[in-house]
């Protein structure tokens, strides 16, 4: 094709001060509220995700502490069953949906373009849209709770208890619509991550040079793409049952309550991997930096990550072993659940081998990552025990499972997340978190967590069912619950120290150097915090460890950072091929836009109308979406013309 005007040959330059100043101005947002609402900067979005998810963690944590006070002794009357049931439902919902994935989206949004050596995500406006919808959906899910109308049937919301007959109040409607709303955000985010991975890596970052943190998040998001529809649909069908009298789950109309459970767990189990695989990949990425060597068996760990997600779609029935299924079916799902342990073992042994053959530096981040290995194993083997069908008939729905889920979600999500924040705080905020406070932070959290949650295994083995608001004396549960409550408060204190550390550091901390830990990946080649444009010239990647090449014995190639393609006509990044990451196009990225916020508000309108059954609001909001989307996708006149033309 010879249409010259649509082509350009970018020069290769070494950026000068003036050039960088120009780039900084080009990529920065206008000041004030306008800039704040219209930005599409992935770093700002990432930080907003981190802060918002932490606020939800804080709220969910407070709910947990109230429950722990109620359960500290037998026959307590601090809160009644009505409030308690809302507390545990909102706690589960908040932690699993509004904290665990969004916090990882925060990491990924901030870090992906930096690690991939580019300037933005593939869809910057969609990125901003996912944040607004997450925020609004989170707020939506909380509108009932302050007035005593929160959902009170647990986060897995089994019908018929959640159906119109046994739960007519608005709590379950809010939860159902909120979950569909949040699903839009999650799915849009997943699409963005996958497109970013396959389209916008820096030139030279062939598929074998993609750092492991990217793989973990990528695999999780591919899983999300196929898992989230199941739960969105499930909640939509429930909403139809509740509002229009349909019979999906209604026995007398030919429906079946187990349909709910199948759809929910087809989503639910992959979701667990969606919220732990990215966190595990944070460990795989950062632990080696603090061990001063590359990760052992990097490729095997990546393959294990992929295998985990694939198998993760075939084990959902192990959440339903007590529902009276045929023995053959249970045997199959039990076997699949045993097999899924194998890829996890790959990660664990790779991490241990990395510590053994490395030269560990005992930073706070390292402590969190090393602790994660142990907590992961505890959470893993308790999962392995529940995979055994007959044993699961005893374990399921007791505190043993509560202990398991907390070792998984706190051990494999919260610990790597806090460690990751110590690790990447120089990039997030340009400062170094205080290591002395970090010591207190780690030990309070680690000891508090184990004192609090390990005894839950035992109260489970002694037969304490989950989701009971009180229990009688004389069953041997009282002392264990008291210990759990004490541990929970210690753990909360640890989280408080973390928050204090962040605040103190932001106010008084010292400026961080560009690469304080001597990290190996591209984000450490930028300043701390990175400039708005991330990279003055786009790097050309030569290996898996761009910043360690001169010091590793064998390195396949050399990364070039100091000179590269001059892409400075508005927001430009190179698009690259899937496998070899050869630049094959100059992508024109959109700048600031109000379209994401408008769309998010319109979707909120749709859901608010549905909740209140004010159909005209929903209808009006849906109609308004068409012009809003036209505005969003309106083709840029710049694109498709030569630079000369567009200047003229």
């Amino acid at each position, binding site marked *: 094709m010879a249409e010259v005007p649509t082509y350009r040959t970018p020069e290769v330059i070494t950026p000068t001060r003036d050039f960088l100043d120009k780039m900084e101005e080009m990529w920065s947002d206008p000041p004030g509220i306008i800039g704040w609402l219209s930005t599409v900067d992935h770093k700002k979005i990432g930080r907003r995700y981190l802060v918002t998810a932490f606020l939800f963690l804080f709220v969910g944590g407070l709910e947990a502490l109230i429950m722990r006070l109620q359960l500290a002794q037998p026959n307590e009357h601090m809160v009644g069953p009505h409030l308690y049931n809302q507390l545990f439902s909102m706690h589960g919902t908040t932690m699993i949906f509004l904290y665990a994935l969004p916090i990882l989206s925060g990491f990924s949004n901030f870090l992906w373009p930096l690690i991939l050596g580019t300037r933005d995500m593939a869809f910057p406006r969609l990125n901003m849209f996912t944040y607004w919808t997450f925020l609004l959906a989170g707020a939506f899910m909380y509108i009932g709770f302050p007035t005593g109308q929160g959902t009170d049937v647990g986060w897995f919301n089994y019908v018929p208890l959640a159906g119109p007959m046994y739960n007519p109040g608005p709590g379950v409607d809010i939860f159902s619509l909120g979950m569909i709303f949040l699903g839009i955000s999650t799915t849009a985010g997943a699409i963005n991550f996958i497109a970013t991975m396959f389209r916008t890596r820096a030139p030279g970052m062939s598929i074998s040079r993609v750092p492991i943190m990217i793989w973990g998040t990528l695999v999780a998001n591919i899983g999300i793409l196929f898992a989230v529809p199941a739960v969105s649909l499930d909640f939509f069908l429930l909403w139809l049952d509740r509002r229009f009298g349909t019979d999906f789950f209604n026995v007398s109309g030919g429906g079946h309550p187990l349909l709910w459970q199948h759809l929910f767990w087809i989503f639910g189990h992959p979701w667990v991997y969606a919220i732990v695989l990215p966190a595990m990949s944070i460990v795989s990425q950062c632990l080696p930096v603090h061990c001063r060597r590359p990760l*052992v*068996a990097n490729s095997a760990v990546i393959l294990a990550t992929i295998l985990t997600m694939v198998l993760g779609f075939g084990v959902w029935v192990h959440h339903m072993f*007590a529902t009276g299924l045929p023995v053959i079916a249970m045997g199959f799902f039990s076997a699949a659940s*045993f097999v899924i342990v194998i890829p996890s073992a790959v990660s664990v042994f790779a991490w241990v081998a990395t510590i*053994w053959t*490395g030269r560990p530096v005992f930073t706070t981040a390292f402590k969190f990552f090393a602790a994660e290995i142990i907590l992961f194993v505890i959470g893993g083997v308790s999962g392995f025990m529940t995979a055994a069908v007959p*044993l699961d008939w005893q374990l399921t729905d007791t505190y043993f499972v509560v202990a398991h889920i907390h070792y998984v979600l706190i051990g494999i999500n919260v610990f790597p997340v806090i460690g990751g924040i110590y690790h990447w705080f120089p990039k997030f905020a340009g400062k170094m978190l205080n290591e002395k406070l970090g010591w207190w932070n780690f030990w309070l959290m680690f000891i508090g967590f184990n004192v609090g949650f390990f005894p839950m295994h035992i109260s489970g083995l002694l*037969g304490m069912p989950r989701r*009971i608001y009180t229990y009688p004396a004389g069953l041997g549960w009282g002392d264990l619950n008291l210990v759990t409550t004490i541990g929970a408060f210690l753990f909360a204190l640890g989280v408080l120290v973390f928050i204090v550390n962040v605040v103190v550091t932001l106010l008084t901390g010292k400026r961080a150097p560009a690469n304080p830990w001597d990290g190996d990946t591209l984000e450490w080649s930028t300043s701390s915090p990175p400039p708005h444009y991330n990279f003055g010239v786009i790097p050309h990647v030569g290996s898996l460890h761009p910043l360690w090449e001169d010091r590793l014995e064998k390195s396949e190639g050399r990364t070039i950072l100091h000179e590269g393609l001059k892409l400075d006509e508005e927001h430009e990044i190179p698009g690259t091929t899937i496998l070899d990451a050869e630049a094959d196009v100059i992508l024109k990225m959109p700048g600031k836009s109000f379209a994401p916020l408008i769309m998010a508000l319109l979707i909120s309108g749709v859901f608010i109308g549905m909740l209140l059954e004010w159909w005209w609001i929903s209808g009006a909001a849906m109609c308004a979406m068409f012009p809003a989307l036209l505005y969003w996708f309106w083709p840029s006149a710049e694109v498709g013309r030569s630079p000369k033309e567009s200047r003229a």
Partner: protein
Amino acid sequence: MKHRPPLVRRTTLAAIAAALLLPGAAWADLPMTYLITNGAAANPLAHLGWGLMGLSVFVIVFIALAVLIGIWRGRRSWPTDAAGRPKLLPGVNAAPFVVIGVCVSIVLLFGSAVWTFFTLAHVSQPPKDPAITLDVTAHQWWWEVEYKHYGQKLRTFVTANEIHVPVGEPVRVRLISPDVIHSFWAPELFGKMDVIPGQTNITWFEAAKAGTYRGQCTEFCGLQHAHMAFHVVAQPPAKFHQWWTHQLADAKQPVSPAAQQGEKVFLHHCAVCHTVRGAGGPDIIAMGKLGPDLTHLMSRHWLGAGTVPNTTGYLAAWVENAQSIKPGIDMPTMDLTNRQLLDVVAYLQTLN
């Protein structure tokens, strides 16, 4: 593994467990544990549980030690770079370590899976065809128990929240839910089976020795899920037969004047929801089906599905204002005078 483990082994297990888990606590005080069991449907599960738990503890200790030793090894002084960090260590190939670890894991997993499948096959059917069939209906938030078959006999009666069974006889249980999902579970005797509307699940159990075993609903079923317990009373066959015959009989006519007054009160205030077989006359009978059958109320040890013991004081409190004991249940606060309350309690206490 058909028989329960010999006494020595059981005691040893208990001792180890007590030492590990709960110093000073006696297993007798742990009525809901499933680590020490008393029935053919639960014993293989307990063995599997101990086995997999032992393996799990071993794995945890092994990996934790590996991490700690790795860290301890790392505490030596390495050659440092300009910033004072240990110099970067170029690739030492440690992949064989991972391969060995994964291979050992696969072997252990395979063994566990085989053990699991044998256990599953072993407990999925009772050792012999059960002589007794029960229909257990789980309500929000109590258990209705209907005795169907007993040997060749086909006579039925209904009771609530307390299941009597003969020792050494397998019992088949059909699980029915008219409202939401519950789960039927008495850990010392059998693992959970969900009670699901629109589907009748069948399970079985067999008590190995006489005693009272506690059970509880374990699938969250609403406001009073916490107060939905039941008890299984295992009795020697002769005693069970005696109990069964007694339960078949109608309630005796009250003798004392207070109880006779109480029956009238009962028939007017309570009979809409509760059954007492044999109460009343030709114009009014007590055949209500919404609440538990009270024909032999005083043969039961608990009130409100294991919520409070069946004593005079609790019984009176329950009749007067059950909502204060178990808020949210269907039983309304009864608008009775003191006299009526005393009479009706006197009547109820004749229902032995």
